[in-house]
């Protein structure tokens, strides 16, 4: 990953694994939050999935160096989570789930204050605060008191304060919570642009699986304090046999029957979408499908290689 350092010389960071956690167990009293969990988080954008209470929050806390593990160990960017919390937090930006701001401050004041808390000199902090607020799309509103902000703006300012000190790892906890569709799209674009090609690694924890799908390359699924699944989204979504989904204008029984007569496997439709399985390459299959449609008086409105949704992947991991 190439990025320019302050002297303008290109340098190549050899960071391949952002965080490595091995056999980590965290207990609070009788409650085991993480149970002998091992995982490796490579660079790029990783989605962290799991039902409520699965230990996602504890994992984030662990990465921040807040938790004293009962056993096991972990490193974040080659720093030990048990002893090097401060150094780790210097490299991490956290965007928490809850609203958080410092009362009585403007957005610029707040973000530059956050920068100063991370050790930036005041002048640099202020300059950088303006820059980061620009990225986060807070235009003139940056001179307003944060307390008067709407939900969407509060989300942006949370991201801005997490980015101000130029973290190498960004932890985003439910970044799109409470955002309206446009706000969500902008937030996801922003996260994606920051995490791809800018040397910032991102871990996103979210219940909204389509969001994860949009920004992340990989996911890890934590259930009951254990790692259940990990891998790239592309691989996880693949379906055996690569069937195709055919969308018709309206459901048509004859169409399905005729396809089956031609020796194709058709699963019962969901609404007006038929899943068709065959040995043919996609373009050939399409020809067959379209001919059949013409014969049966159906109109094909969509034809795509079928995949599982991330939700199906997740639910499967949950019941496995």
């Amino acid at each position, binding site marked *: 990953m190439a990025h320019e350092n302050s002297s303008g010389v290109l340098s190549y960071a050899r960071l391949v694994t952002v965080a490595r956690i091995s056999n980590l167990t965290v207990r609070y009293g009788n409650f085991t939050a993480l149970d002998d969990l091992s995982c490796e988080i490579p660079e790029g954008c990783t989605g962290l999935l799991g039902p409520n209470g699965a230990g996602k929050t504890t994992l984030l806390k662990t990465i921040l160096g807040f938790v004293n593990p009962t056993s096991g160990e972990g490193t974040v960017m080659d720093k030990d989570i048990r002893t090097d919390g401060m150094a780790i937090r210097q490299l991490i930006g956290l965007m928490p789930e809850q609203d958080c701001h410092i009362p009585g401050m403007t957005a610029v004041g707040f973000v530059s204050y956050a920068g100063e808390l991370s050790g930036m000199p005041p002048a640099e902090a202020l300059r950088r605060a303006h820059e980061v607020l620009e990225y986060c799309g807070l235009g003139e509103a940056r001179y307003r008191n944060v307390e008067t902000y709407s939900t*969407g703006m509060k989300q942006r300012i949370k991201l801005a304060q997490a980015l101000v000190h130029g973290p190498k790892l960004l932890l985003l906890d439910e970044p799109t919570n409470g955002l309206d569709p446009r706000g969500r799209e902008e937030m996801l674009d922003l996260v994606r642009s920051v995490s791809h090609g800018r040397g910032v690694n991102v871990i996103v924890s979210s219940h909204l699986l389509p969001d994860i799908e949009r920004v992340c390359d990989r996911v890890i699924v934590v259930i009951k304090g254990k790692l259940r699944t990990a891998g790239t989204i592309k691989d996880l979504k693949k379906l055996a046999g690569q069937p195709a989904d055919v969308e018709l204008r309206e459901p048509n029984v004859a169409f399905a029957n005729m396809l089956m007569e031609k020796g194709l496997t058709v699963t019962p439709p969901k609404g007006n979408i038929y899943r068709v399985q065959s040995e043919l390459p996609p373009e050939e299959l399409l020809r067959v499908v379209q001919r059949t449609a013409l014969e049966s008086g159906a109109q094909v409105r969509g034809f795509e290689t079928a995949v599982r949704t991330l939700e199906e992947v997740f639910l499967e991991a949950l019941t496995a």
Partner: protein
Amino acid sequence: MSIAPFVFTSTLQDMLRPKRFAIWVIVAIAMVVLGQVFLRFTPTSTATTAYSTLSELIVFRILALAAAIFATGVVSQEVEQKTIVYLLTRPVPRPVLILARTLAASVTVSIVGILAAVGTALGTRASFGDVFLRDCSALILGAFAYCALFVLVSLLINKSMVINLIFAFGYEAAVPKMPGDIYKVSINSYLMSIASHPKIVPVASDSAPVATPGAVNTIQPGAAWLAMIGLVVLCSMFNAQWFDRNEYVPREDGD
């Protein structure tokens, strides 16, 4: 209104829950200690005068303080922690809601006041006789009057706690001591008339500018009763009407 008793008892339970109420028990115990100390160091005073002094100086202040605190629990605290939504969207008529809750606050404050009075009486070894009983009736009446008034303030003003505290500590402490007939516009004067404490050893003081000798309280106890009951009734009627007609929605940002 069959729901009113439940609103009353549940609010009362909430206000009297041990964690919240412990502090007032501690205050009452402190009054026992204070009574002992006072008695030991003012050999000239009798049990009754000692009790009266402490009651007038401290117990009635505690009453006003408790009223300021518990009265905010009736409405404004609910608005602030936004839980008012749950109360307002139940099939409970709003006048019933506020009157039953105010009643619960008044009862709680009465209990706090009487507890402090009992502590004082125990500490000063005063008898639980006439003076004490008169005090109790004044405390109960005072609790109702303060609560009704403070609830009214909290309905009208957003951050009412400060105003109520200033009223309880500043106004109620200063006005009864003012010359002329001004003292008649403070609740404390009427309560003192009902309590009719025996003459009290004046506490000499040269560092508290407000501690002037004070006017002679000429309010008749009967008139005081009428005035206080009138105040409670008027305030409550107003509260019920006002609360029924106005919106109590927590401000939310973003929408």
